């Protein structure tokens, strides 16, 4: 299979995602410039973390209008896989492939540390190698990760099992103490209804090898690969 890693001006996790897909996982990977439009031959597009267009106006607000995004929306509509990590998640919200929006973290700090996540849905193409209820350790690094959605929108996410990852403590308890940024319902990652577009604030690529402090994130990339085989 082949991963495509999109580079926007200001992306800074593109090389880490490329490394995780190609060098750690051992699959094909290619960079895609934000001005390109051709996605033929790709099985999964990764929108990496960073500060596309300097986060001007709102994170992801400018990137969603880059040329590649039109192709990515079509790619997603065909049912192909799109994975948005951190700023990539913010772009998926702005372009409307996922519901909701991001607010500044509740404490207004840029938070860069390891947190714990609970796998709430392990029936997705991105998480089927985990167990539901499993606790993962991954780093977050963001200023706008305070996920917001209307009460109706939240209910739809809950009813459709679209909440994939939630912030928890080491024992797997999901409560306000384990919520680093104020996100509604401790939401760290959600999937679209169709199950082919996944966005998350934590960085699986930065936790894809033990030498990095955790390899809990690798199974996200491996889940995609195994699902496609």
């Amino acid at each position, binding site marked *: 299979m082949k991963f495509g890693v999109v580079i926007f001006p200001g992306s800074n996790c593109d090389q880490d995602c490329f490394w995780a897909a190609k060098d750690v996982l051992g699959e094909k990977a290619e960079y895609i410039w934000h001005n390109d439009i051709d996605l033929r031959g790709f099985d999964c597009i990764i929108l990496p973390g960073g500060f596309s267009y300097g986060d001007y106006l709102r994170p992801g*607000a400018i990137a969603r*209008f880059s040329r590649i995004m039109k192709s990515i929306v079509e790619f997603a509509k065909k049912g192909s896989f799109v994975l948005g990590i951190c700023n990539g998640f913010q772009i998926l919200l702005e372009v409307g492939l996922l519901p909701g929006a991001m*607010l500044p973290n*509740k404490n*207004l700090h840029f938070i860069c540390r390891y947190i714990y996540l609970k796998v709430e849905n392990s029936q997705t193409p991105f998480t089927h190698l985990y167990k539901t209820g499993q606790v993962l350790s991954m780093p977050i690094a963001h200023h706008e990760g*305070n996920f*917001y959605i*209307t009460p109706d929108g939240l209910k739809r996410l809950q009813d459709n099992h679209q909440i994939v990852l939630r912030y928890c403590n080491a024992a797997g308890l999901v409560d306000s103490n384990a919520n680093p940024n*104020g996100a509604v319902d401790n939401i760290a990652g959600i999937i679209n209804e169709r199950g082919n577009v996944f966005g998350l604030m934590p960085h699986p690529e930065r936790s894809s090898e033990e030498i990095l402090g955790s390899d809990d994130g690798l199974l996200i990339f491996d889940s995609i690969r195994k699902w496609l085989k």
Partner: protein
Amino acid sequence: MLKVEIYITLKKTVVDPQGLVIKHALESLGFSEIAGVRYGKIINMQLDLKDAKIAQRQIDQMCKKLLANPIIEDYHFKIKKT
């Protein structure tokens, strides 16, 4: 030429972390009578247009498409002739 001021604020139903911190900071400076603070943005724009009605339509489109996120933000604007 028209001069436009666009105000973008978080919806009243959305918690505003920046407003809360500003309120807290002002209170710690002794301003104890603040009932609430909401933080927002102003965008100043000059338009090469004479017709305020056309400008109004255009600004509305700009806000809907890019300048505000309708999920979390409200906007309003003032148009002045220069």
